[in-house]
């Protein structure tokens, strides 16, 4: 957060920001309490935010709990990442039909992407998820073949990031270099301060963010505001539930492909794919082809897939990865090692979702530590 442009927005004026974001029919999405989790949903005012709620997370455990204070962003991350908005689980690729009157009897057309391309504001983006959006940009936009649906959804997005002051027990963004304070890739970055007056530090990260900020009823941040913000970040780092020294991991995993630990984790892993669904960077997809009853019209839909399914690696004759051992190895080595070869960054941002939402509590940081001997520090580990 650049120190020279720090402003303060009173919590009472927060709805001015929400209204500014919604201008011109822009869809404003942010954290909402729904179905017992902090999910992503429409936000029309600060009243829609999960005020006074937090989330407690450990391996295989997630609970929302009331907070002692009234913080609006006093939680870590919910099960959904912004992938559910920018790269939804289903997207139509094309549709076609027989019986055309043109040169061909079969006609195929790309879908109308105007709904996908609707302008959106993402409110409350955590720094880990901000890093994940940056990674998905590289994967889905940064190579010769661009994902058309993602490109449409990404075209007009305002990102309002929020410093993560209350990380969960499964969080390790500080060790991945992706948090807890947003550094880049946002239009506006907020830091919620609860000492004294309930207020937000606001910094602009883009010309668009600067224009938004200029229209808000803010005051210049004083030293006390800055210090409070820095203290929040420092205490957040100190509370980070897990730690992974990622530096040596990509190279070390290359040499650990036959490590006995893969058998150990395979004995626990259900190969259910939960980790890939909650991961904010997992991008693998399958296609579904649907037809009418007589086969005269058809459509092909891109759907999220998981490298944990037996069909994922199927070629005629059988699946390449028959065992859970090989599938878990593919997921972890891709995430932490070959992703670096492919995209210049690990595919992990330290959000901890795969640890929280694993039904048998497999902990990525623990597995990596066992595989490569990397330092793993889990101060909040509870034996269960």
């Amino acid at each position, binding site marked *: 957060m650049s120190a020279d442009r720090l402003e303060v927005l009173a919590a009472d004026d927060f709805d001015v920001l929400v209204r500014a974001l919604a201008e011109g029919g822009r869809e404003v999405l942010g954290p909402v309490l729904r179905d017992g989790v902090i999910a992503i949903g429409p936000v029309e005012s600060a009243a829609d935010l999960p005020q006074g709620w937090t989330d407690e997370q450990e391996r295989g455990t997630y609970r929302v709990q009331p907070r002692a204070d009234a913080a609006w962003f006093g939680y870590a991350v919910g099960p959904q990442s912004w992938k559910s908005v920018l790269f939804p689980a289903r997207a139509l690729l094309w549709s076609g039909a027989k019986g055309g009157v043109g040169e061909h009897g079969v006609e195929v057309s790309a879908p109308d992407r105007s709904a996908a391309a609707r302008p959106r504001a993402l409110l409350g983006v955590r720094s880990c998820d901000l890093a994940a959006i940056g990674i998905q940009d590289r994967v889905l936009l940064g190579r010769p073949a661009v994902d058309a649906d993602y490109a449409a959804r990404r075209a007009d997005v305002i990102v309002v990031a929020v410093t993560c002051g209350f990380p969960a027990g499964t969080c390790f963004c500080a060790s991945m270099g992706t948090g807890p304070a947003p550094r880049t890739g946002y239009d506006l970055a907020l830091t919620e301060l609860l000492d004294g007056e309930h207020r937000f530090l606001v910094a602009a990260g883009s010309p668009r963010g600067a224009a938004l900020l200029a229209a808000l009823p803010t005051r210049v941040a004083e030293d006390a505001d800055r210090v409070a913000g820095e203290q929040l970040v420092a205490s957040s780092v100190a509370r980070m539930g897990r730690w992974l020294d990622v530096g040596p991991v990509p190279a070390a995993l290359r040499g650990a492909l036959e490590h006995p630990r893969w058998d150990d984790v395979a004995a626990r892993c259900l190969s259910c794919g939960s980790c890939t669904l909650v991961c904010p960077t997992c991008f693998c997809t399958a296609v579904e082809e649907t037809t009418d009853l007589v086969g005269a019209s058809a459509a092909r839909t891109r759907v999220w897939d998981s490298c944990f399914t037996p069909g994922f690696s*199927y070629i005629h004759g059988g699946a390449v990865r028959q065992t859970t051992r090989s599938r878990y190895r593919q997921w972890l080595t*891709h995430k932490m090692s070959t992703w670096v070869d492919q995209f210049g960054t690990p595919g992990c941002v330290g959000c901890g979702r795969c640890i929280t939402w694993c039904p048998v509590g497999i902990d990525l940081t623990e597995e990596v530590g066992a595989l490569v001997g990397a330092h793993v520090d889990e101060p909040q580990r509870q034996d269960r």
Partner: protein
Amino acid sequence: MASLAELPRAAAAAAPAAGPLVPRVVRVERVHRETRDTVTLALRLPPGDPALEYRPGQFDMLGPLGTGEVPISVSGGAPAAGTVEHTVRDVGGVTRLLCGLRPGDELLLRGPYGTAWDAEDGVGGDVVLVAGGIGLAPLRPALLQVLAARDRYRNVVLLYGTRTPRDLLFSRELDRLRRRRDVVLEHTADYAEAGWRGRVGVVTDLVGRAPFDPGTTLALVCGPEVMMRLTATALVDRGVPASRVRVSLERAMLCGVGLCGHCQLGPLFVCTDGPVVSWDTAAPLLVIRER
């Protein structure tokens, strides 16, 4: 069948405007039954279609409307006349439907995708092509390319293994090749049948005594993974540098352009970093089981 003069232009294909995952409608021009389970489809493409600009070794995604699609290597064609060929073996749902297509039928096509054999890297030396079964199909355009500039290469050797003597692809064309003095063609069948007087055994066994100079050889290998592994090892054992041995990898591919993630092999997206990769890249990836 393409004549040897009708060669693909080795130009990079421009991406069609609709995006990489939206197929084009093409028409079956001719169907040639190669063996009991394999046919070659000659597809009529509209003028300017990027798939006409394929390079030998590349593949297209093919499928009739409503059935899904599969990656099939280009096996030849007459791009100047607006056709490309794909040789398809009936091994699954989509390939069965492809094998049942008739002239005039329409199907959907995307491509061309992937890396090429780049046989021209062998100019000035020997070129050894080793095919196992349907693996001859992706090698055929490379062979035609070499034969079209025959005087620029030294020995041209084709080693071809089939399961039985009757599983021979492109049999009339191979008969013509056999009569050429400037091409060495060795065929072996895994299993003999009554009346078969040819060689019996695996194609790997042919590598040891084939006439090529390992120091100047470019080897192009395509077949089942175990066959490619053994063949590449035999070639390297004879002294061909691993970087001059190229194999065509097969993995699950749903998109062909590096987006779906299914074809990953270690750091490779086989669809865009392959299917053709040199053996020094492939060997360390293939030694790990279920990688």
